[in-house]
C-alpha cells in the first residue's frame, strides 16, 4: 500500500491510494460517506415562532447546520449508559433567541459546550421582519449518515481509477485530440504531443476515438485510485479520513469479539 497526498486542507483532501483491492477502497469511501459519527441537531423545542416559516421547516434547517464534532466527550445515544434517554454524555443544547428585523445566521446559535459549535457561522436560517421573534432550544446528538444526511461528515467522497496515458512514437501531432479533450489534459509543445496533468483525465477516451492512427492510449491503472474527499466542516479532512479507518477497525474488532463468544 502506498499513499501520495496531492492536496490537504481543512475541508478537502485529495490523495492517490496505490496497491489496494477495489473492495478496500470502496469500503473506505462508504465508511466516510455514511458511517463516521457526527454531531447534528436532532430535536428542537420551539418556544416562540412568529416568523413566516412553519416550526417544522425551521427545525429541518437547524438539523442541516454542520456542527464541529468532539468524539472524545460524546458517545452515540445507543451506546450511552443512559440508554438513549439523553444525558450530558450523549447530547448538548444550543439556544437561539432573536427578534427582527434582521437575518438570523447559524452563528447566532449559542452552544452550551464551547467545543461543539457551528462549523460555519454564515449559514442563513431565516429573515425576520419587524416584531417577528424566534425563540428555540435545539438538542444535538451524535449519529451516522446512514440514518440521516444531516449526520454525514463526508459530503463529497469518491474515487476514480488512476489514468495512464501513453503516446506512441508514430503520433503525427495533428492536434485533434487536444481539441477533443474536455479536461485539457493534452497539449502540443514544440510539435510534440504531451500530457500536462494525468490526474485531471476523467478516462472518457475521446482522444482515443478521434485518433485515426491509434497513437494515443488511455488505460486505468489497476488497484490505484484518486480519492477526493470534502467535509461539511464537522471534522478537518485529515481527521475524517482517520476516523473513517477507525470506524472500520472498530467494526472488524466487534465482529471478531462476537464470533469468539459464539465459538
Amino acid at each position, binding site marked *: 500500500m502506498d499513499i501520495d497526498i496531492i492536496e490537504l486542507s481543512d475541508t478537502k483532501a485529495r490523495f492517490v491510494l496505490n496497491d*489496494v483491492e477495489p473492495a478496500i477502497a470502496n469500503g473506505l469511501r462508504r*465508511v466516510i460517506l455514511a458511517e463516521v459519527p457526527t454531531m447534528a441537531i436532532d430535536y428542537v423545542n420551539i418556544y416562540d415562532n412568529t416568523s413566516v416559516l412553519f416550526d417544522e421547516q425551521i427545525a429541518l434547517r437547524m438539523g442541516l447546520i454542520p456542527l464541529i464534532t468532539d468524539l472524545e466527550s460524546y458517545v452515540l445515544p445507543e451506546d450511552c449508559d443512559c440508554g438513549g434517554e439523553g444525558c450530558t454524555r450523549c447530547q448538548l443544547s444550543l439556544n437561539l433567541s432573536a427578534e427582527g428585523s434582521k437575518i438570523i445566521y447559524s452563528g447566532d446559535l449559542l452552544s452550551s459546550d464551547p467545543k461543539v459549535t457551528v462549523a460555519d457561522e454564515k449559514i442563513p436560517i431565516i429573515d425576520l421582519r419587524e416584531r417577528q421573534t424566534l425563540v428555540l432550544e435545539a438538542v444535538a446528538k451524535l449519529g451516522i449518515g446512514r440514518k440521516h444526511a444531516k449526520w454525514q461528515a463526508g459530503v463529497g467522497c469518491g474515487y476514480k481509477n488512476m489514468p495512464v496515458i501513453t503516446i506512441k512514437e508514430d503520433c503525427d501531432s495533428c492536434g485533434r485530440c487536444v481539441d477533443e479533450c474536455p479536461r485539457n489534459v493534452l497539449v502540443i509543445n514544440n510539435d510534440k504531443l504531451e500530457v500536462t496533468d494525468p490526474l485531471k483525465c476523467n478516462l472518457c477516451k475521446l482522444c482515443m476515438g478521434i485518433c485515426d492512427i491509434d497513437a494515443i492510449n488511455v488505460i486505468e491503472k489497476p488497484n490505484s485510485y484518486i480519492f477526493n474527499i470534502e467535509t461539511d466542516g464537522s471534522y478537518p479532512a485529515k481527521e475524517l479520513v482517520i476516523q473513517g479507518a477507525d470506524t472500520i477497525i472498530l467494526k*472488524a474488532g466487534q465482529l471478531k469479539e462476537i464470533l469468539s463468544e459464539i465459538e
Partner: protein
Amino acid sequence: MKLKVIDKTDTEVRIEIVDESHTLLNSLKTLLLSDPRVELATYHIEHPTITEPILFVKTKDVDPIVAIKEASDKLVEVFEEFKNLFNDKASM
C-alpha cells in the same frame, strides 16, 4: 452489531449480521476469498432497508468461524496500515 447463526456445520456457516452493510461485508468477503482454505465466501442483502445481510462461508480443513475471525484481523491490519501511512504523509 449482533450476529445470528442460521446454519453451521464443520465446513459451512451462514450468519446474519444485524445492522451492517456492504461497507464491512464487501471488504470482509474479499479478504476471506484471499485465504486459500476458503472455498466460497459471499453475502446477500435481500432488501437494503428491511432485511439484514447474510454472510455465507464454505471452507476446507478449517472451521469457517475461525476463517472469518482471521479475515477480520486482516481487515484491521489493512486499515491500521492505511491509517498510519495516511497520518505520516499528512503530517509531513
